[in-house]
Structure formats: structure tokens, C-alpha cells
């Protein structure tokens, strides 16, 4: 495997803090061009924050992130915006503009950036909507869409400018089984057909393992496991196995740290 050079995104020694709270404590990630890489971890580990760091919306406290050879934190605002035109991001909520129709949402980045004549914008929008199977929904407003449809519209919008990569923030959370299946297929297909590089951030183990080429597992600011889905299922680390197989108790305890149960029930001071 000599494709070590072909990383679209490289994260080196990344540290990040919110105030005094350490979210990342020196993590290294390589995201290969053309692959689907998943970043998994329990809620609150900082997965969304990681995507924001890659997109340059927040700056690392230490370490470096490079995207397509550019170190994100060093770019000027203008360069950053140029880079972002080549990155699509699918937010957890879809983040559709609520005052614009489905069509106008997908047209939004094209109208803002491409300077194409309206007739061509229309053709492109219809093509993107067709790709996610929602050409028929073009006149609906975001409030009229189901959660799964909203995410597909957001996906159509994310690919409107033909980016080199797409970042998905929890694409499967809260989806019914059918939308889930649709999204899994879409993400995989788009990655192949458009030659994208995909980054999926998720805690839905089964769906993510089904489409990811490589998985990083994060916990408490560190990479605790990495490998292909198969490798992770048989990982040595008990913690990774607990996470991948979704067991309620294990190295990650079921209970939030608390005082002794019996003592607390019996103590008088705790009562009001």
C-alpha cells in the first residue's frame, strides 16, 4: 500500500479546547482520497467539532489540519472560502434555508458562486435533485419535507458545486429504516459516481460500518481504534468492541459517576 501520499485530509497532532475543557488531545487522522472514511464515537466526543475544524469554522488550539495540501488554519478568509466551495457539508439538521423552496435551496450555492445563467442553474439543480430522487419535490418548502427528504435535499445542495469531498454529520440519526437505507445507498453511490471523498461522522455503528472503507473511533479526545470495519469488530480493545457491538455496560460504565447509591438514599442531607 504505497498510497500514503494520497490523503485528501491530514490531521496531525490536533488539540482543541473549549475553555478549559479538552475536546481533542493530540489526534492524527488520514483521510484517503476517493474513500469513505468514518469517524465514530459516543455523543459529545467532538465529532461535529472535528468537521468544523476541517471546514475552518473553528481554529485548532494546536496541531494542524491540511485539506488538499492547504493548512486550513493558515488560509486567509478568501482562500478559505475558495476551499470551502470544494467541500460539501451535510449538517445534522440538514440546515436548509427555511425561507427558500427546495429548488432555491439547491440553486443557492450556484447562484451565489457560479455566475451561470439562470437556465443553466435550472438544469443543474434538476440534475442534482434527480440524483437524490427528489426532482418531484422541487416546489416544496423545507417545512413540508420529512427528515429523510430534508437530508437528501441538503445532499443535493452539497453536491451542487461539484465538490471534491463531502462531510456528513450524523447522516443516519433519527431516520426511519427506509430513509436510512436510501441514505446509505446514496452516500456510497455518490462517492463512486462523482469520485468524491467522503467523511462520515456517526455513532450508528451498523450503517456506518456497511459503507465505510476505514473507520476511526474516538473517545475522550483520543483515537482509541482504527481500521477497516472488519478489523474493528475483532479489535483487541475491549472499549472498541463494546462500542462497535453496542453493549450497554463494559469499560464504559452504564452509570454516570455518582456517590454510593445506598449511602445517598439513606443520607438525610440530600433531602429537601
Amino acid at each position, binding site marked *: 500500500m504505497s498510497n500514503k501520499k494520497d490523503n485528501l485530509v491530514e490531521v496531525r497532532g490536533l488539540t482543541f479546547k473549549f475553555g478549559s475543557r479538552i475536546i481533542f488531545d493530540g489526534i492524527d487522522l488520514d483521510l484517503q482520497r476517493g474513500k469513505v472514511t468514518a469517524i465514530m464515537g459516543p455523543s459529545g466526543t467532538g465529532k461535529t467539532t472535528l468537521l*468544523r475544524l476541517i*471546514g475552518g*469554522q473553528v481554529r485548532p488550539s494546536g496541531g494542524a489540519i491540511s485539506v488538499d495540501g492547504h493548512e486550513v488554519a493558515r488560509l486567509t478568509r478568501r482562500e478559505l*472560502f*475558495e476551499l*470551502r*466551495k470544494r*467541500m460539501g*457539508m451535510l*449538517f*445534522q*439538521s440538514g*440546515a*436548509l*434555508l*427555511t425561507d427558500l423552496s427546495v429548488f432555491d435551496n439547491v440553486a*443557492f*450555492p450556484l447562484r*451565489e*458562486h457560479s455566475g451561470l445563467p439562470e437556465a443553466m442553474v435550472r438544469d443543474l439543480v434538476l440534475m442534482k435533485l434527480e440524483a437524490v430522487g427528489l426532482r418531484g419535490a422541487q416546489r416544496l418548502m423545507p417545512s413540508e419535507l420529512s427528515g429523510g427528504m430534508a437530508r437528501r435535499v441538503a445532499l443535493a*445542495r452539497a453536491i451542487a*458545486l461539484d465538490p471534491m469531498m463531502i462531510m456528513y454529520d450524523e447522516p443516519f440519526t433519527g431516520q426511519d429504516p427506509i430513509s436510512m437505507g436510501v441514505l446509505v445507498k446514496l452516500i456510497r453511490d455518490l462517492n463512486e459516481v462523482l469520485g468524491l471523498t467522503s467523511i462520515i461522522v456517526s455513532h450508528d455503528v451498523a450503517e456506518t460500518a456497511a459503507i465505510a472503507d476505514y473507520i476511526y473511533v474516538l473517545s475522550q479526545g483520543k483515537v482509541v481504534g482504527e481500521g477497516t470495519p472488519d478489523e474493528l469488530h475483532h479489535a483487541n480493545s475491549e472499549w472498541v468492541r463494546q462500542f462497535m457491538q453496542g453493549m450497554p455496560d463494559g469499560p464504559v460504565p452504564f452509570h454516570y459517576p455518582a456517590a454510593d447509591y445506598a449511602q445517598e438514599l439513606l443520607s438525610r442531607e440530600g433531602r429537601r
Partner: protein
Amino acid sequence: MSFFQQLGHHALAAFQRLGRANLFLWTVLVGVPGLLFRLRLLIQQLFAVGVLSLVIIVVAGLFVGMVLGLQGYYTLVDFGAEESLGVMVALSLVRELGPVVAALLFAGRAGSALTAEIGLMKTTEQLSGMEMMAVDPLKRVIAPRFVAGVLSMPLLAAIFSAVGVMGGYVAGVTLLGVDEGAFWSQMQGRVDFHEDIMNGVIKSVVFGVVVTWIALFEGYDAVPTSEGVSRATTRTVVYASLAVLGLDFVLTALMFGEV
């Protein structure tokens, strides 16, 4: 934390916020010239911010004018000066009540709506989404709303004053029988364009800037949760109203002080 630590903490937080608010205003102002090429965005916001505030401004202006007519009459008639009612109504409105009451209503109607809208856009990641699409929300979303607010406020205040004068007329002339000719001619003679009307306009421009600024900043700076947005909306109305009343005193002292 000790009391002093907390005090210092709050003070620092307040100053940080003030700094952010100033940076915010500056960045928005930088984005304003670009709007010349995107007039459609501005027109949409003029509608949302200005036109939709019209009803409350007109209704309130009418009632305030009528009350001024009644109260002014009862006071003036004791001195046999009820013919000056027109002047009194017009000056009160143009100098003070027009700009101030219109700004208070504007803060409640348009300001709270702006804060809630921007706050919700932040909560639902629409602003982040725009940034990731390489679109600057300060230019695309905030700047048009800011300009719309600043342009609407003096117009709304003028409409408020005009309708208020009509209200004063209805109460004074139609209901209480003040001489119509005196009502209008004294008003025409004594209301000065520079002294009174322009000063009122300046006030309402200042109020427009301040109210819109507070409303947009509170929305943009809101904690992105439903609770955060509702708090921000409340803060907008409280801060904007207090700012209007405080600034009115300062401006009045500056404008009408020496003469």
C-alpha cells in the same frame, strides 16, 4: 467562586460582548456597499421589517395623537390658548413622541422578530451552513436586514407623527371644536423645518441604527438553543427600549439644550 471573582467574571463577559457587538457592527457595515448589487435582498427585508410594522405604527400613532389632542385641549383651554393645540400636538410628535414611541414599537415588533429569526437560523445551523457554502452570512443575511431597519425607522417615525397629527385633529377639531384654521395655521407657522423636523429625523435614524444593531446582534450572538433564542428576544426588547429612552435624553439635551 468568591463574590469578587464572580463580579470580575461578569464584568469581563460584558465587555467581551460589547467588543463582539462592535466588531459585528463593523463587519456588517463593510458588507453594506455590496447590497447595491443585490437590491432584491434589500427590498425583501424592507418589506419584512418596514411594511409589516406599518399597522402597529399607524394604529398607535392615531391613538397617541388623539390622546395628545384631548390632554392638550384640557390644559390649554384654561388659558384660552386652545388654538395653539395644533402646535402643541405637532411639536410633541415631531420632536419626541414620533421618534421615541415609533422606535419602542419598532423594537417590539421588528426587533424581536429579527432576533428570533436570526437566532433560529443559528440554532438550525443555517448560518453555519451558509459559511460552509462559502457565503458570508453577515453579508447575505445580516447586512440587508440592517439597512432595511435603518431606512425604515425614520419613515415609520414620520408616518407615526403624520398620523398622530391627524389623531390630534380628530380629537381637537372634530370632537372638541377647536378652530380648524387656527389649528393648522399655527402649526404651519411654528414648526420649524430644521429645528424640529430635522432633529426628529436625526433621532429616528440614530434609534434605527441602535435598535436594529441590538436586534441583529442578539440574534447572531444567541445561545443556539430554543431557550437561548427566547432569552435573546427578550433582551432585544429590553435593551433596545432602554437604549432608545437613554439616547433620547442625550440627543434632546444636545439638540435643544443651548437655544
